[in-house]
């Protein structure tokens, strides 16, 4: 029997000893193409939970395992290169990088610090840029992109890792209608392809319609919810 996709037992998460999430327990069975959504108001602990899944936030108490690996363990460290992470939209740093260079960063986990990139790496980067529709932006600096373009470049970077699981934190927030539409279409295509599992943190009901499993975060607690109604585009994708 395969390990659960995500498992938490009496998990307490917080910052500086102050809990944000109290004694959360959940178990989500794994299956190919699974899309899991976290929904809830600001400050409810969704992003903290996602960061704990990535080993960025250490639990104050309890146990957490993603794809059978507990953060901080050797097994988890070997899982990291097979994850694709798109953080909550934030302005790119001061280092000027072209979109292509930024997408190549997604390959760092697979390449490590010293291995030279080969044909497979180049193909993975090319495919990721094509899927995200950012090939035409390859030479542009990430600092010069619109919000929607930057988010698609970030998703391309995550896809370049050829991830088993994509973790996305509020991927459609702070975007104009056009940017949000582009991100929604891209994530719908990814969900339709079924090659990667998805873990989505969002307020966006339309985006959450992609998720076959949904959890609500509120007042420091987590509870399973009925999946959100899929949009017509998502319904079409699911039929396909």
């Amino acid at each position, binding site marked *: 029997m395969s390990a659960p996709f995500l498992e938490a037992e009496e998990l307490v998460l917080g910052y500086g000893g102050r809990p944000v999430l109290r004694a959360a327990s959940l178990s989500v069975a794994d299956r190919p193409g699974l899309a899991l959504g976290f929904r809830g108001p600001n400050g409810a602990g969704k992003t903290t939970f996602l960061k704990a899944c990535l080993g960025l936030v250490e639990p104050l108490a309890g146990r957490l395992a993603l794809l059978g690996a507990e953060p901080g363990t050797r097994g988890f460290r070997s899982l990291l290169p097979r994850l694709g992470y798109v*953080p909550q939209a934030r302005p790119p*740093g001061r280092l000027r990088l072209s979109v292509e260079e930024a997408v190549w960063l997604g390959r760092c986990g697979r390449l490590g610090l*010293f291995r030279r990139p080969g044909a497979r790496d180049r193909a993975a980067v090319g495919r990721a840029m094509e899927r995200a529709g950012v090939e035409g932006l390859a030479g542009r600096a990430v600092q010069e992109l619109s919000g929607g373009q930057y988010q698609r470049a970030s998703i391309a970077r995550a896809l370049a890792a050829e991830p088993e699981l994509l973790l996305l934190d509020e991927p459609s927030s702070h975007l104009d209608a056009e940017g949000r539409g582009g991100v929604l279409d891209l994530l719908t295509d990814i969900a339709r392809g079924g090659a990667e599992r998805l873990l989505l943190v969002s307020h966006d009901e339309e985006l959450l319609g992609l998720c076959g499993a949904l959890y609500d975060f509120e007042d420091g607690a987590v509870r399973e919810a009925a999946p959100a109604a899929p949009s017509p585009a998502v319904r079409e994708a699911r039929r396909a």
Partner: protein
Amino acid sequence: MPELWALAPFRRAIVALAATGLSFPAIGTYILALDLVSARFAVMHASLLGAALGLLAGLPPLASGLAAALAAGAGVARLSERGAERASGALGLVMTLSLGLAFIVFYKSEVNAIEAFDLFWGSVLALSRPELLLTCAGAALVLVLSAVFLRGIRALLYDRELAGVLGLPARALHYGLVTLICAGIALAMRVTGALMVDAVTILPALAARSMRRGLAGTLAWGAAFGLAANFGGFALALALDLPTSPAIILVGAALVLGTGAIERGRAKKR
């Protein structure tokens, strides 16, 4: 020129200008990308304290100043993990405390304060052979480590959290890079003087940033501008009988203004 070349201080200066011009703009690029501009003052003052303690113990002030800079580097790395804004108060404390302790050492001991302050008033024409060797070794280390760890440094400077999630040793890379920055600052102090460290680090890096390249391109342009500023400034100093470090600053500033104007011109065309 041949008669100048016959002078050992002149030959040492040429070698030091070549080594630091080629290598130290990389330090400036890292300082700018990590937003550690204020941290370099803390490192300079920690070096002064190290030099004072070294003189007290009968050690060469450059070596003890360098050791203090490396120790300060570990502290700066830890503080900078909190983010530039939150670290600024603590860095101010390190800077003031180092200065206060250095003056207490001067006051309470037989240490000649002027000798310790030589670290602040470094000059490329006053380098001894061991200082030149140390500077060249430091410059070579910056180049080698930048080349070997380019991929990790790029990921770290782009987004440290992301670098960690990618499975890279982000924390070790961060500490290593900040320590390298601090060692570079301490060595640059001896070449240009503490108050003019920016001449060989920040100014060429600023000019290189205006060339709008990725990390490797920025480092290459920084080296080109560093060499141009160092040798242009040195030539200007000889021609007009100016002090060397301020002349390097003049040429470096001209490069920053010139490349900035080119960048603005390009932006208007787009």
